[in-house]
């Protein structure tokens, strides 16, 4: 379970300018194996929130209690000198696994994730959607109870993004983890999350916490999805 209470985080201003208050008095609880989608406009502190959960930053005020979390950054950042298989197994190598043992561990996952045949491919030979799948697998195989996903599909085109949202939904159904997913796409948040948490613009704090009760798989046209999306946008002050 992730417990964040009254957290504030301010960054020093650039070149002696005004300090930037990224988060102010933000509180959030995430139950174990729950998927929480955090939505907000750019610059509202979503990435800061993820980094606080991952322990990459400390809050200036308030507390963050979280089990170990693995980060999936916005861009896949796959290493170009490694094959897809070796990229996915990076966390295992860091943990001390020998190269072949890491590969043996990763291999079965490639079939499960629809990446069969691409084990030896280099990242630049893969499509955007495939790279995100390898990056997600890399995050998963770090073996941490919490997954922190930073706008995982922001860099993809709309068609691939739609496919990947369905794919992630199925993948998370099979591999239960506590997931904090940050996105600027409200619809994506409603499709993927058990809860949608809406952040205000900077300084970010929670302005809405909506439970998504409908069972998965969800489609864009489900009435519950449409109405929740409208509710979230309304909370953000955006006309639907």
């Amino acid at each position, binding site marked *: 379970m992730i417990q964040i209470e009254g957290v504030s985080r301010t960054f020093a201003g650039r070149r002696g300018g005004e300090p930037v208050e990224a988060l102010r008095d933000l509180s959030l609880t995430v139950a174990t194996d729950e998927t929480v989608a955090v939505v907000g406009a750019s610059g509202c502190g979503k990435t800061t929130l993820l980094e606080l959960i991952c322990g990459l930053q400390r809050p200036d005020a308030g507390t963050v209690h979280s089990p170990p979390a693995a980060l999936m*950054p916005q861009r896949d950042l796959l290493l170009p000198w490694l094959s897809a298989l070796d990229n996915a197994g990076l966390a295992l190598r860091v943990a001390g696994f020998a190269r072949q043992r890491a590969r043996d561990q990763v291999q079965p996952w490639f079939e499960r994730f629809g990446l069969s045949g691409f084990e030896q491919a*280099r990242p630049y030979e893969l499509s955007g959607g495939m790279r995100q799948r390898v990056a997600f697998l890399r995050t998963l195989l770090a073996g941490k109870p919490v997954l*922190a996903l930073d706008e995982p599909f922001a860099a993809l085109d709309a068609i691939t993004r739609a496919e990947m949202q369905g794919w992630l939904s199925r993948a998370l159904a099979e591999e239960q983890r506590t997931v904090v997913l940050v996105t600027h796409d409200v619809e994506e948040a409603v499709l993927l999350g058990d809860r949608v948490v809406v952040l205000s613009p900077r300084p970010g704090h929670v302005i809405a916490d909506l439970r998504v009760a409908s069972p998965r798989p969800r489609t864009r046209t489900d009435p519950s999805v449409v109405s929740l999306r409208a509710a979230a946008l309304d909370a953000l002050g955006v006309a639907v």
Partner: protein
Amino acid sequence: MLLPVLALLALLGVWELYVDAGGVSSLVLPSPHAVATALVDDRGTLWHNLKTTGVEIVCGIAIAAVAGLLLSVWLHFSLVARRALFPLLVASQAIPIVILAPLLVLWLGFGLLPKLIVIALVCFFPIVVTTLYGLQAVEPDLTKLLHTFDASPRQTFWHVELPSALPWLFTGAKLAAVFSVIGAVFAEQAGSTSGLGYLLGVTVANLETAEAFATVFVLAAFTILLFALLTLFERRALPWVHRQRETPTR
């Protein structure tokens, strides 16, 4: 491959015309065919001196590469060292080799050592600057990612930073290769009994201009060869750098 050759032939043609039609003395500017003749006639001497200079250059670059890589790694990990030493490194390049080489010969004599020092000094700077940049220019998100995998700074270095910096190291080495030849010539002219730089000095002094040009030609050819070998080595060792550029973006 074809275009540089054609350009070169055009240049040689103009040169030949200028010397023959303009009636220029062969002591001042020899014609291309005179240089070619000298190349063939003196091939024994040229080869002998090339071996001397070649050994100096290769050893000098090797020393500079190893020392440069080690220094880059140290400066990468130690902020204090970086702040203290980097300005000194830059300042060291301001010393003209023309002055440095004779001073070193005065101190260390006519042997191989002063030449190696000059060449290594000239090669050191581009290697350290490029490699250090490569080590420091790793995406911050990648470092954060590894941190969440519980990687120590040493592990981050081996898994991510060093492989990232290798293309930069090769760029530095290629620059160094070109500078090293100039360094070798200056070092030999300051005090040597053999080598292409020495031969150049002798032939110019004796007004054997065609032979001097032939020596320069051999030096230039050697530089191109070094550069080409390094490029070839880079393609073998770091296949992804080349292939990444070739793959069309989706």
